[in-house]
């Protein structure tokens, strides 16, 4: 069992005693002890090193550095009892000391260049994303001839991204409907305005929550899958293989995903709208005593069709965003597994970010148009 290195000043004997194992792993708190050590100035004293049991290069270096400091302060001292092999190591360190340079403490990089570099990187990334959208559009030209369209791939994408997402989207929308109706119901009950729950829930779910929740779930569920699939294909050289067969990876991989989502997301939004409203109905029935029939009757009267269509208009834009970001990040994957992870994260964060920005943009547009 190694003992930690220590040093003490013994006043009666005018002796500095070094003890323990002076090893890289046991030096530990020694530097702090050395700093605190104090003894009378301008005295001559003895250094007793006989209690040192083990010494390695790090210990010898520490010892050498401390002795040099003492010498620099004009202390006179004599080292006694150092084991001959340890003395050999200390002499060796002393001989090499002129070559040893202690590295300077690394300075944290200045903030301004860091911000600048990040900014330039973001701008470049943004431009690359744009050129990727351009590439997808240019490739889309080939689909003007119906025989070139990859029906199989599109249908498979609709199944993967649409059908298989039905349960989760239905459940989450239903729960959001319940939460929303509960919070609104608390307020409405105070004003005895129970019937207005129908107006509010219709507006909130159809215009905002249905499309937004659907888009965010799809971004997390499908956008990340797109990135990972394309990223792994890139690492596996499957993308290069496609190119060598004279096929465009954008046409084969990106377009089916865009069109699959273009069909799936609006349909999923309709589904989410229905379940959201059901959640509201359920809560209205329990909390505000509005029967299901009354709810539906009033719903027809007070919620105009416009609310529904204004919500749905946004969804194709979300679809294109999610597919483009997911595929773009997939193609950005470099040849490592780490990169698949980081690009997938980035893909989800960016899609959700863009979805919310687009939603805000639509709100501004609608209010500007007085809709």
């Amino acid at each position, binding site marked *: 069992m190694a003992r930690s290195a220590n040093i003490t000043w013994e006043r009666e004997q005018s002796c500095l005693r070094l003890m323990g194992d002076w090893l890289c792993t046991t030096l530990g708190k020694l530097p702090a002890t050395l700093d605190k050590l104090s003894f009378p100035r301008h005295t001559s004293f003895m250094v007793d090193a006989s209690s040192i049991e083990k010494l390695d290069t790090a210990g010898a270096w520490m010892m050498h550095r401390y002795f040099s400091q003492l010498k620099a302060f004009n202390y006179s001292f004599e080292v006694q009892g150092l084991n001959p092999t340890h003395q050999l190591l200390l002499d060796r360190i002393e001989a*090499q000391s002129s*070559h*040893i*340079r202690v*590295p300077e403490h690394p300075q944290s990089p200045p903030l301004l260049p860091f911000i600048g570099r990040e900014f330039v990187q973001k701008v470049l990334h943004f431009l690359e994303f744009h050129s990727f959208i351009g590439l997808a559009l240019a490739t889309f030209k080939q689909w003007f001839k119906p025989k070139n369209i990859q029906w199989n791939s599109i249908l498979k994408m609709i199944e993967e991204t649409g059908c298989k997402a039905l349960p989760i989207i239905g459940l989450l929308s239903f729960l959001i409907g319940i939460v929303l109706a509960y919070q609104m119901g608390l307020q409405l009950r105070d004003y005895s305005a129970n019937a207005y729950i129908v107006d509010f829930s219709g507006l909130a779910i159809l215009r905002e929550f249905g499309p937004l929740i659907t888009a965010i779930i799809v971004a997390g569920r499908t956008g990340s899958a797109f990135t990972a699939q394309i990223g792994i294909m890139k690492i*596996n*050289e*499957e993308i*290069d*293989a496609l*190119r*060598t*067969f*004279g*096929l*465009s990876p954008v046409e084969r991989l990106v377009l089916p995903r865009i069109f699959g989502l273009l069909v799936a997301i609006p349909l999923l939004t309709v589904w989410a709208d229905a379940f959201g409203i059901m959640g509201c109905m359920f809560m209205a029935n329990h909390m505000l005593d509005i029967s299901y029939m009354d709810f539906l009757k009033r719903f027809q009267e007070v919620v105009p069709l416009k609310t529904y269509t204004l919500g749905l208009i946004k969804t194709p834009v979300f679809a294109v965003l999610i597919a483009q970001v997911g595929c773009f990040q997939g193609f950005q994957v470099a040849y490592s597994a780490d990169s698949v992870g980081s690009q997938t994260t980035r893909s989800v964060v960016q899609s959700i970010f863009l979805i919310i920005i687009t939603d805000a943009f639509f709100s501004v547009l609608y209010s500007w148009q007085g809709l």
Partner: protein
Amino acid sequence: MIPVKINHLSFSRNSHVVFNDVNISIDPGKVTAIMGPSGTGKTTLLRLIGAQLRPDAGQILVGDQDIHRLSQKELYLARRKMGMLFQNAALFTNLSVFENVAFPLREHTQLSESMIRRIVLMKLQAVGLRGARDLMPSELSGGMSRRVALARAIALDPQLIMYDEPFTGQDPISMAVLVKLIKDLNTILGITSVIVSHDVPETSSISDYIYLISDGKVAGKGSPAEVSVDSSPEVKQFMHGLPDGVVPFHYPAKDYREDILS
């Protein structure tokens, strides 16, 4: 069968010069090997021939077409005449062995299903894996995937086939199988073959001509017999596998002593 001519090719990546004025001529119907230590850009060269990368200067003629001056459409047409065997096979992991080999046929031909079936079985027979047609790529060993990839690469009867490190990481038996397959495909079908490799004995045994690339330049060229007795230090070190020489054992670094003690 088409020749490939590389004239005064220069290519650099992030200020690191990969090729500097390289001239290579690949004869039609022959097996040409491009060899060199790891990291000399051999795979990059294949990507340049396939026009997946653009050179900084110089041109690459495949047949009589300058591959980097073609329009997108012409390029895709030109690539159909080239087969490529990737280092890690690059099979489509969501398709079975049969579908992988059938993939280029389905994409580029209007053949009937029974015709496609016969061609796929013929190609699989050529690589000895007709019995493995229903397996998925994840169920294949490394050597088998490479053979399936080879069957896929020859599915459209290309005029030029490029092998990227075909022997790397293979056991001696698979290695011998691949050597035999590459040689047979070349002699029977007369496909112009380019092998990028650093496995000296296997590659020498089947190639008609060898180019040795080192440090961005052609360090040596000639028939296998000529290259093996070449006296230039780079060629000698590589062909005989000496650990230290013109190509240093150490990646460039500052002085060892200084590095440790600083």
